[in-house]
């Protein structure tokens, strides 16, 4: 029993209260000012962001040595941010980036964290997305797709999962980056996909979200990766989608932003990982609904089994219809078309989260007046959070559009309409028109 007086707060509660205090202080300013000032406060500081981003593209201070094995990531974070802001880099710089990433490409396929480094799936994803974001013949043709396919196969483990690099760690992140790269380069095939679905399914936890490895805790980053990968390999319906939706929906807190795990602190980068997952689920709402209805009144037993038994007995191919969306024929689905057809058709339901609240968190709590974005008040800006806050902002702005990338209604945008960013392809997180360009480039004339 508690001693008399106020109960002692746990570490989690204390940290949470501290952050809430800071966030609410920030919001209080907003409620105290005129609508005109409000609009000013809610502005996206485009010029400042561009300044911060373009500077980093050339030269970084000595403290960046800790990211010396992540340089394609720095390229991607910056280029994706610039593309979202509807800006471009000058031609010379563009050529230099293509040249640099070419130096990171391993002669046996894939990209490393810098010239001469071992090929790594995460930096491969970053390099490929960077080149697609730059666009154009030179950038896109610099990717050796044949070698890439061989590299991806080498990273594949018999369990179905992928390793990050030769003899490296295996997790859901590796599965996503491998599948994303293969899909966007039009080299995804049955061999690469085999058993990936079973592995990701084994990472969905009792909480509803997806963990990095079987048994670990449900986590926003892995949940996005797992869900997007499952969609791209046409296996999304193996997941317990209502449980997944419930878990992600509950990650948006009173601070208006998203947390990465239950009872953890809000963080701007989850605007994309969780917000993006909710956008994916919004597109999949018919499948979620289908599963929800099956679960009603104990009908779940005969229709689908719990995940423990499913993972041990299930093999790809035994349930050929498992990944089908209602009304689609299996024979009509070609693996490499999934990313493209995901964009087709209207969205069957509205946003499943509070998109205005999330914009408020991004603009007021994550945006840094000197340019760039940060995790939360009290933290420093960085390129990673800039990329994922802006990506999340774009997700918020377009989640009310019925057709993908269609200009959203002004009511969907917090702050001036000029805050509107470019729309993204949510499965790959590249700007939509760059995706289309890459898609036609890699699928070739047919």
């Amino acid at each position, binding site marked *: 029993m508690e001693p008399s007086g106020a109960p002692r707060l*746990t570490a989690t509660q204390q940290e949470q209260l501290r952050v809430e205090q800071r966030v609410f202080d920030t919001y209080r300013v907003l409620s105290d000012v005129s609508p005109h000032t409000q609009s000013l406060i809610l502005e996206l500081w485009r010029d400042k962001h561009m300044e911060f981003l373009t500077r*980093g593209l*050339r*030269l*970084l201070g*000595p403290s960046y*040595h*800790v990211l*010396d*094995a992540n340089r394609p990531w720095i*390229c991607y974070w910056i280029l994706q941010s610039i593309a979202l802001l509807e800006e471009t880099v000058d031609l010379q*710089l563009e050529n*230099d*980036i293509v040249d*640099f990433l070419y*130096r990171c490409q391993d002669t046996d396929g894939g990209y*490393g*964290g*810098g*010239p*001469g*480094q*071992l090929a*790594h799936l995460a930096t491969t994803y970053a390099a490929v997305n960077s080149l697609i974001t730059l666009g154009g013949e030179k950038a896109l043709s610099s990717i050796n797709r044949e070698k890439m396919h061989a590299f991806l196969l080498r990273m594949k483990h018999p369990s179905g999962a992928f390793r*990050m*690099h*030769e*003899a490296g*760690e295996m997790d859901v992140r590796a599965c996503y980056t491998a599948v994303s790269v293969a899909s966007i380069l039009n080299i995804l095939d049955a061999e690469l996909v085999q058993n990936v679905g079973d592995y990701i399914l084994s990472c969905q*936890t*009792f*909480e509803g979200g997806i963990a*990095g*490895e079987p048994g*670990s*805790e449900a986590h926003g980053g892995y949940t996005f990766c797992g869900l997007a990968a499952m969609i791209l390999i046409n296996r999304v319906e193996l997941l317990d989608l209502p449980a997944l939706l*419930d*878990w992600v929906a509950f990650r*948006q807190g*009173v601070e*208006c932003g998203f947390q990465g*795990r*239950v*009872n*953890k602190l809000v963080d701007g980068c989850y605007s994309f990982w969780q917000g993006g997952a909710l956008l994916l689920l919004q597109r999949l*709402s018919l499948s979620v*609904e289908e599963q*929800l209805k099956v679960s*009603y*009144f*104990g009908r*779940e037993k005969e229709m689908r089994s*719990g*995940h*423990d038994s499913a993972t041990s007995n299930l093999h790809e191919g035994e349930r050929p219809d498992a990944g089908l969306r209602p009304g689609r024929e299996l024979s009509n689905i070609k693996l490499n078309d999934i990313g493209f057809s995901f964009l087709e058709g209207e969205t069957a*339901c*509205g*946003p*499943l989260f*509070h998109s205005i609240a999330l914009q408020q968190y991004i603009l007021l709590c994550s945006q840094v007046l000197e340019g760039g974005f940060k995790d939360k008040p009290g933290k420093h800006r960085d390129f990673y959070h800039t990329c994922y806050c802006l990506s999340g902002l774009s997700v918020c702005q377009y989640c009310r559009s019925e057709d993908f990338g269609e200009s959203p209604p002004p009511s969907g945008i917090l702050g001036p309409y000029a805050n509107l960013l470019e729309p993204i392809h949510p499965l790959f997180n590249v700007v939509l028109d760059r995706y289309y360009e890459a898609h036609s480039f890699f699928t070739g004339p047919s």
Partner: protein
Amino acid sequence: MDSDEDERVPFSRRPEWSDVNPVPQDDGPNPVVAIAYKDDFRETMDYFRAIYQSDERSPRALQLTTETIRMNPGNYTVWHFRRLVLEEINADLHEELDFVAHVAEGNPKNYQIWHHRRWVSEKLGTKAASVELQFTKKILALDAKNYHAWSHRLWVLETLGGWEDELEYCDKLLEDDIFNNSAWNQRYFIMTRSPVLGGLQAVRDSEVSYTVKAILSNPPNESPWRYLRGLYKGDHKLLVTDTKVSSLCLEVLKIDPNCVFALSLLLDLLCYGFEPSGEFTSLIGGLKHSSGDTLDAKFANTICCVLERVDPMRANYWAWRRSKLPTEVY
């Protein structure tokens, strides 16, 4: 603290390295995302590249990777090469664990050290179990939610064993902080995988009691609510028929009629076929009244309406759920 960093002698002035030609990084004529390396970082990497390219797996190569990793523990290529060297020279792996522990102190959230640790302890086998459990415990004492440390700990338990004291440890963590979701996840892992407990079915009753107690002491804590559902995973029928679950909802809602977790669990119970009676009917009747819902509306519908109001952040989600309610529901 290390003193060797202050007194660092450049490789170019170390006689034992005089036979090696450093290899500069090939960044091209117009580098991008170029890092303004400090001299010692650049030089160390230049020597690393030389040794890596010549694939020299020697004791001095091991020493070189030590220095390189201390400067940037995120360089997976260096770690990978270090493993090749360790194998080649048959290094003492216990010493290796000390090295990793030292690096981990300053960088507990780095992927590479944990992967390396796994590699080393796998080689050492079951005798490494207690050291590894001790090591993760130490890291978790500084940050009880360190994701990598938890993943490593799960791997150790499953691969090398050491389950005996795990539940006690987990109890202690939850005692310290009942909001620690990582500890709840660990608890689920123990209940479902520990060979000494006999599986979920065997522990369900006692775990439900434990969880109910945790919820009643702190209803706004999401972790035990999700854990409770987890205890019935894959068996909605049992969730609906076990009166401990429905009475918990009732009890919590009597104290706080707006408790989102109780309302959402009750909503799911109704959707799975729960037939409310007695006290439930009057409780939901009261909610109906406060939500301004029409009297003939179904209970599940009413709960969605209440949730849309008391949980505005998820109003869209609850509205969507409301639009998908089955017709047979109460």
